[in-house]
């Protein structure tokens, strides 16, 4: 018991579990200057496309006020103080200086679908028009050989500068030669390695690209792995979840435009601005958890009264993501809003370990302090251990992946 509490305490205070929201004046002043210099530099550059942000905004009937509202929200999301708002606005306008190449590998295209309806001041337009999406297999106009030519062109022209977004896992086992792309029949691993070569950073979007995802579920028929397992010597940013939240994709691009750097990452290479806290921390049903009010079976009185879904297998207490704040589909709703609980889709192995209706206490998870929880009714202890399990997985996974404990800024 006491070693459990000690272990949990250690995990909570470990460096990678901490989100620093106030780094002091001199830090921010310094960062402000760096960002300003970066933006000036970008402004001097030739835009990748000729689209004018303000024109597009007014064309779509979005006024400056709506835009500034979005700017404040985004500045806060990136965990920057309000003084950065004008810079964030400028960065949004300079997004047409950031070439993005998007690859789809072993996937279901769900993240692209999610991106197509991202939010903000008509961010659909920002993403599709302003961000120079130089190459996207699903969204772009040319196809086949023409598309390959366009990819080669983009890679050459923006060598060393483009952000490479990757959707989908990479089969490196039996499936390595089963999945191919393009006219030459290049396998996914070779394709990714080749395109990643000239990228400024690689962004793995969705849980497949991050950890292998559903294709990597036991018995992992194709030997699927994530981007960070195969791309070495390049900054990798993970934006897990199934699908990844478009707000976080836009956030990463914006951060890159603003600072020229990779955002601060946790031990699983996830940006802390989005994955620095747990679903549970800001859950709308949290009060019911604290009061010990649970849904005990689907459709019961508790379900009708929006009680806590912990006993129905909600993985909110151990899942790091900002969906309880950002929500999905332009903020309309999120899974817990429809009473089905979090499946932990931004955590490694969710597909095998904690899918549907398996209370965390019953899941095949070994708490880092030893022992597996049996009864969720001892919820005080249950919670602590559960949180510990979540963080424990991070530590274990990063040890396996050979990642350093603190991602830091690259």
């Amino acid at each position, binding site marked *: 018991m006491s070693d459990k509490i000690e272990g949990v305490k250690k995990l909570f205070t470990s460096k990678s579990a901490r989100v620093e929201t106030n780094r002091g004046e001199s830090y921010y002043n310094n960062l402000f200057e760096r960002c300003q210099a970066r933006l000036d530099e970008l402004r001097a550059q030739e835009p990748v496309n000729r689209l004018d942000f303000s024109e597009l905004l007014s064309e779509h009937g979005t006024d400056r006020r709506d835009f500034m509202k979005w700017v404040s929200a985004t500045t806060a999301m990136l965990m920057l103080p309000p003084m950065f708002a004008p810079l964030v606005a400028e960065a949004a306008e300079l997004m047409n200086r950031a070439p993005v190449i998007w690859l789809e590998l*072993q*996937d279901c295209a769900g*993240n692209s679908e999610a991106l197509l309806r991202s939010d903000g001041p008509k961010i659909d337009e920002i993403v*599709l028009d302003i961000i120079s999406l130089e190459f996207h297999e699903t969204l772009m106009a040319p196809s086949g050989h023409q598309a390959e030519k366009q990819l080669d062109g983009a890679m050459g022209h923006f060598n060393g500068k483009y952000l490479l977004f990757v959707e989908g896992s990479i089969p490196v086992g039996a499936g390595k030669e089963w*999945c191919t792309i393009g006219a030459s029949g290049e396998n996914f691993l070779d394709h990714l390695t080749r395109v990643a070569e000239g990228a400024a950073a690689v962004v793995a979007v969705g849980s497949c690209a991050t950890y292998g995802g559903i*294709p990597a579920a036991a018995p992992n028929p194709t030997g699927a792995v994530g981007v960070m397992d195969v791309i070495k010597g390049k900054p990798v940013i993970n934006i897990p979840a199934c699908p990844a939240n478009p707000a976080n994709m836009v956030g990463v691009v914006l951060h890159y435009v603003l600072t020229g750097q990779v955002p601060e990452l946790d031990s699983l290479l996830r940006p802390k601005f989005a994955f620095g806290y747990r679903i549970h921390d800001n859950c709308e049903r949290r009060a019911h958890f604290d009061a010990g009010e649970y849904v005990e079976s689907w459709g019961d009185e508790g379900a*009708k009264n929006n009680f806590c879904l912990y006993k129905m297998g909600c993985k909110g207490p151990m899942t790091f993501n900002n969906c309880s704040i950002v929500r999905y589909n332009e903020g*309309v709703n999120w899974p817990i809003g429809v009473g089905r609980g979090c499946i932990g889709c931004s955590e490694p192995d969710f597909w095998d370990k904690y899918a*549907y209706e*398996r209370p965390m206490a019953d899941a095949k998870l070994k708490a880092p302090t030893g022992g597996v929880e049996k009864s969720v009714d001892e919820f005080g202890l249950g919670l602590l251990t559960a949180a510990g399990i979540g963080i424990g997985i991070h530590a274990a996974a990063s040890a396996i992946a050979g990642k350093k404990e603190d991602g830091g800024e690259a």
Partner: protein
Amino acid sequence: MTKQLIDQIEGEASIRFDMKENMVDFATIAFPHFRGMEAILEGKPALDALVVTPRVCGICGHAHLMASVRAMESAYADANEPVQLTAKADTIREVTLVLEMIQNHFKWIYLVIMPELAKLRPEKIALTPLKGAYAASLASKALASFAGQWPHSSYMLPGGVSCDPTHLERIKAQSLVDELISFFEKECAGTALDDFLAFDSCHDFNALESDIGEIERALTAAGMHKKGFAYDRFMVLGEHRFTNPAKVMQTRLLQADEKHVKTHSAYSPSEKTFAKNACYKDEFYECGPLSRAMASNVELIKSMHRRFKDSAYSRVMARIFETARLLDHARDMLGSLALNEDSLIPPKPITGISGCGVGVVEAPRGPLIHRVEIEEGIIKSYEIVTPTQWNIGSSVKENPTPAQLAMMGNVTMEEALFIFRTFDVCSVCTTH
């Protein structure tokens, strides 16, 4: 032999053409992706399928969820523990399924069909892909009011749905659907939805000064009413309020039963493929919106079919017309949703269930079948048959699949590539 890659779909496909005097003589189709979903499901707790199967596809995951939950409910029945569903739960499932179809159709119209048509008739078509993205986003927001998120929701469960919407959610969804209908009227159809649905001849499309009018005219100008014919027999297997299961031979409606559906490995001599061909009693059938309209006796489409049979024209216009019908249907269903009923009547825990089940739904592209065998709550075997396996299989020249047949004969390669798109391809579903 010429190989053509097909992008802008979920995943990738490639077609190999055998040409004779610049016309397509024969074509084989390959889907070079694979994930192994069925193997992944084996040995997992049954309810995990509700998390795994929606992730087969980024654009019709909801249809997979519904097929999966129907398969489980059918396994309950097989184990003599029939599951009850309230009208409310049934309506919510149906509304979200229909909204998913709507978003798919809008994206297909604006991100696939218009650009592809523009390749044949570049002077005619103005490209506005963002219109499709915007309409799709309205539909998926309405959907998320009940399902929590889109894509990839798992809110359906044996016995009902996990959400318990209040009037607030209903009103939110209604206002989104109303907004979408206005968008459709103003930006796509150029006429009121009710008037559009009351059309009685395809001449009426021709007069529209709108995107849909433009598409119709371009299709005719490209001769697509005289090309792209398949077998003129159709298959609908899902039981829904907007359509009904039927085997349609030209215009005759016959009974259809999922048990006659089998899959065979696809034929692809020069390239590896993970696709299968779906057959009904060893014969190929076309499925999708045109089939559904034929099966449920939609007058306009039947009259179109009398003139243009199962041409590429009919296939495109049937999907556009279905979009309008589904918008109307979604509005009606939201209006009639009884909020005071139970969302879910809990069945016995699935750990006590052993049996076989089948779930069939109409997905955006046609019938989607999930077959499951459960032993004490654990999945013994799982089989998924997807709509693209019906339409876009690859077989030998003597016995082509609907898409192969539609591309053969008097068409150029350019035209064949367009005809291929009229089936609405989904590669990730095909191979899963």
